[in-house]
């Protein structure tokens, strides 16, 4: 629920509006080949490099369904708790645009591969459930490139035929933040399935928002506006915020919301009308005669279900329970499926789970970020990290040295013990050696000794530092402290 924006509120008394948001997410699947032909499905190739008569829609060409697309679609549907339509049918959505070479898009109309699901996620300190109306399979269109120099528009058909899953939510979100959190949770869940890059910048995940408002208490939905052209989740949030405010002002000033499609201009933070309801397409959906409908067996759907990975919410619960990791840290771990897997691999080798979690969430993540790679590209084995933590815990090296050598371990691929030996990094814990050094530094600094004896115990740190310096940082600081305390207590 949102109140009318400040200022206006006072003029109209206590009229409160509820925001209603439904989101449509287009997800590009990263299958090897396109949805209806054998062309490579890759991003970033030279224009029109990955095309053939089928995806160019040349006369006489015919589509053939890529089975992997179907399986991935089922995967997405199951992950979103949907019912799967075992009756597989495609339809034609007819409209004209130069990026659509056939004059129709092959999509699914009355039998989406998945329907009636939900996604649950943490939102503003509570758990929020958003219904999934449907998820259906379709082909992506090409890309128009406007060339100002040549004063013309060029078409790149590489993207044509890229498999898409369109995920349509129920109008269950009631604030821009809820929309943002839904998208974040959806992306996280989808990323676990390993079916898409889920990268908004590359366009592999795109989102349109349907926004309306209604007086609090009213059950009938208000007239919606459709927002397009948001390039990030935060842009979605900003666009929805802007639209809610626009609609609220409009209604409060006696106007009426009209059904239309608006384009979000993020730079200027404004929406620009794209088309009104009157201009809306009649898509003339009808069954795609070139693809024969068929029915999947229950076993086929079952096998996808069995192959489904543990999803983020389940993983979060299990990591908290099995390893005693707190919610905050566990949430960081599960942001990346491979990071959580890495944690569990380490946990099988060494049982100080909290320590492992800390190392991963701080030191390992730092490596990943500074190198700008994914965990998969970081040549760090669970065995290496587990051994490193063990060497810190058993006092062989200091925590500081441990953190220092992590980066080198990643680069060299050497074992922890080899690096410790090669660089002589093992801590010196030998009592005689430590006492000898302490003798030296105490003897050399009578002034400080006097200070300590006068009660300024903090000055003992000076001796630790001096001893460390003499031993090139390898002295066991814990032991030094203990020894110094003993010495000065004894007088």
């Amino acid at each position: 629920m949102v109140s009318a924006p400040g200022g206006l509120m006072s003029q109209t008394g206590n009229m409160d509006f509820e925001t209603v948001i439904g989101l449509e997410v287009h997800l590009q699947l990263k299958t090897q080949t396109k949805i209806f032909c054998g062309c490579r499905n890759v991003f970033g190739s030279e224009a029109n490099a990955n095309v053939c008569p089928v995806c160019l829609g040349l006369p006489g060409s015919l589509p053939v369904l890529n089975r992997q697309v179907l399986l991935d679609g089922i995967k997405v549907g199951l992950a979103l708790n949907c019912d799967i339509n075992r009756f597989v049918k495609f339809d034609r959505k007819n409209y004209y645009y130069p990026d659509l070479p056939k004059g129709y898009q092959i999509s699914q109309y009355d039998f989406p591969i998945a329907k009636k699901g939900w996604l649950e996620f943490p939102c503003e300190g509570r758990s929020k459930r958003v219904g999934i109306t449907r998820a259906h399979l379709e082909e992506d269109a090409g890309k128009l490139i406007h060339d100002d120099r040549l004063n013309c528009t060029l078409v790149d058909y590489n993207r044509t035929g890229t498999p898409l899953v369109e995920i349509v939510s129920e109008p269950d979100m009631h604030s821009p933040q809820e929309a943002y959190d839904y998208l974040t949770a959806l992306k996280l869940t989808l990323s676990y399935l390993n079916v898409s890059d889920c990268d908004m910048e590359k366009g592999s995940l795109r989102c349109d928002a349907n926004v309306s408002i209604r007086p609090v208490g009213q059950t009938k939905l208000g007239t919606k506006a459709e927002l397009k052209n948001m390039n990030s989740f935060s842009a979605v949030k900003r666009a929805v915020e802007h639209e809610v405010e626009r609609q609220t002002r409009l209604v409060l000033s006696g106007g009426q919301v009209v059904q239309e499609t608006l384009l979000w201009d993020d730079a200027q933070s404004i929406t620009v009308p794209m088309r009104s309801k009157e201009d809306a397409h009649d898509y003339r959906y009808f069954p795609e005669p070139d693809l024969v409908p068929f029915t999947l067996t229950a076993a086929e759907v079952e096998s996808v279900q069995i192959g489904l990975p543990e999803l983020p919410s389940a993983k979060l619960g299990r990591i908290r329970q099995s390893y005693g990791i707190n919610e905050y840290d566990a949430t960081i771990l599960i942001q990346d499926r491979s990071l959580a897997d890495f944690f569990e691999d380490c946990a099988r080798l060494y049982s100080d789970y909290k320590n492992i979690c800390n190392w991963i969430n701080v030191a390992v993540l730092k490596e990943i970020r500074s190198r700008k790679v994914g965990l998969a590209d970081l040549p760090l084995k669970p065995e290496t990290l587990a051994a490193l933590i063990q060497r810190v815990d058993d006092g062989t090296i200091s925590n500081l040295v441990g953190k220092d050598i992590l980066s080198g371990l990643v680069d060299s691929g050497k074992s922890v013990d080899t690096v410790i030996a090669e660089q002589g990094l093992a801590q010196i814990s030998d009592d005689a050696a430590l006492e000898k050094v302490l003798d030296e530094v105490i003897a050399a600094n009578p002034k400080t000794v006097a200070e300590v004896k006068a009660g300024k115990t903090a000055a003992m740190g000076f001796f630790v530092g001096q001893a460390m310096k003499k031993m090139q940082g390898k002295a066991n600081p814990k032991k030094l402290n203990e020894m110094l305390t003993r010495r000065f207590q004894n007088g």
Partner: protein
Amino acid sequence: MSIPALSAHELMALMNAGKASKEEIAAAYFERARGLNSKTHAFLRLEAAPEFPAATSVTLPLPIAMKDNICVKNRLTTCASKILDGFRPPYDACVVEKIKASGGVIIGSANMDEFAFGSSTETSSYGITRNPWDLERVPGGSSGGSATAVAAGQAVWALGSDTGGSIRQPAAFCGIVGMKPTYGRVSRYGLIAFGSSLDQIGPLTQDVTDCAMLLNIIAGYDRRDSTSVDKPVPDYTQALVRDVKGLRIGIPKEYFIDGMQPAVEKSVREAIEVLKKQGAVVKELSLPHTEYAVATYYIVATAEASSNLARFDGVQYGLRVVPDKTRKSPLVDMYEATREQGFGDEAKRRIMLGTYVLSSGYYDAYYLRAQKVRTLIKRDFEQAFGEVDVILSPTAPTTAFKVGEKLADPLAMYLSDIFTIPANLAGIPALSLPCGFDDNHLPVGLQLMARPFDEETLLRVAFSYEQATAWYLRRAVL
């Protein structure tokens, strides 16, 4: 006998006996094709010289006419439409690959009704084709160029496509054999679509034996066409036996209508007697939903066509017309001008019809209802084939009509396909072969229909009838 008067199997016999070479045969056909084309206009384009592809399977190195809606790599393929002006497909249709693999020599692109929209070949954007039996008459359509080429001896045989009778009706009008195979028997890959759920490529030949031979080459599963069926292909020439003893032939009473040309009915009734004499058991039956077939067809076929033809928008290939003045937007203006100038009247009529029946608010009343009736028509056949093995009827209600006679009356033209449309709606195989002549010496066609994938029975009955009569031996004199 001169080479262009011989059938494919006769030419193969000559070749195998060493009495003619493939080069001689091709040269003779190329010469005749060129010589006669100003009279018949069977071909829109003729190849300059025979090109013999390296055969990889059976060798039938004979000149073949290709309907202009079947893609031939690097050759103009226009569906007889201006909108595809200059379009050269970068690939061969599946059937073209198969023809080439068998050594076949493409002699040229056969004329047709624009996008196969018509029953007379008069809607071609590049001029009409004339019936070899009477040059004042149409050859039928839409595969009129293919039928004429075969009937006039301008090609040994031809491929056509049949969406509502477009192979069988011109075969009947031109006195040759034409078969629409079962939907899914021949790959549609590379056939420029009209009504995707109805289209099927098939042979047009001089006799039933040639029909079996050509079907042998083109039939079979193709993974590039999801509607093609993965079912073994028999050797269809094995079905060429004179034996119809005990075979049950059904005569649907709905196919003998008022207003049918008397000579057509007479010839078909006589054909029934011929088959009876050979031992076939003939019984009358009913296909009760026949009267709805034409209406159903013109909803389903135009709906699919309106969508299939959407790609001809001037963006990627073919005609592009850019108007001088901007009216709506440069893009919309280009779309409109291109399609306005690129499509002929019949194409526009069907695009509008199809767009209308799919429109929001009309879909249920038209398209959905038509699909339901289609199911009923299919069921009529399933029931009938529980009682009989073959259904026999006239191919068309009349023989070839005069050029211009029906062009101004689309409904009269549509009724020309009244007997052929049901087989497309039901997806079953059907064949037309000559069964007599009318008073004007114009050929009459006999249609046989069979169960899905039972082309063999069609061929057996057709062969038995053909061998018992001599209609197929008559040739048009040009």
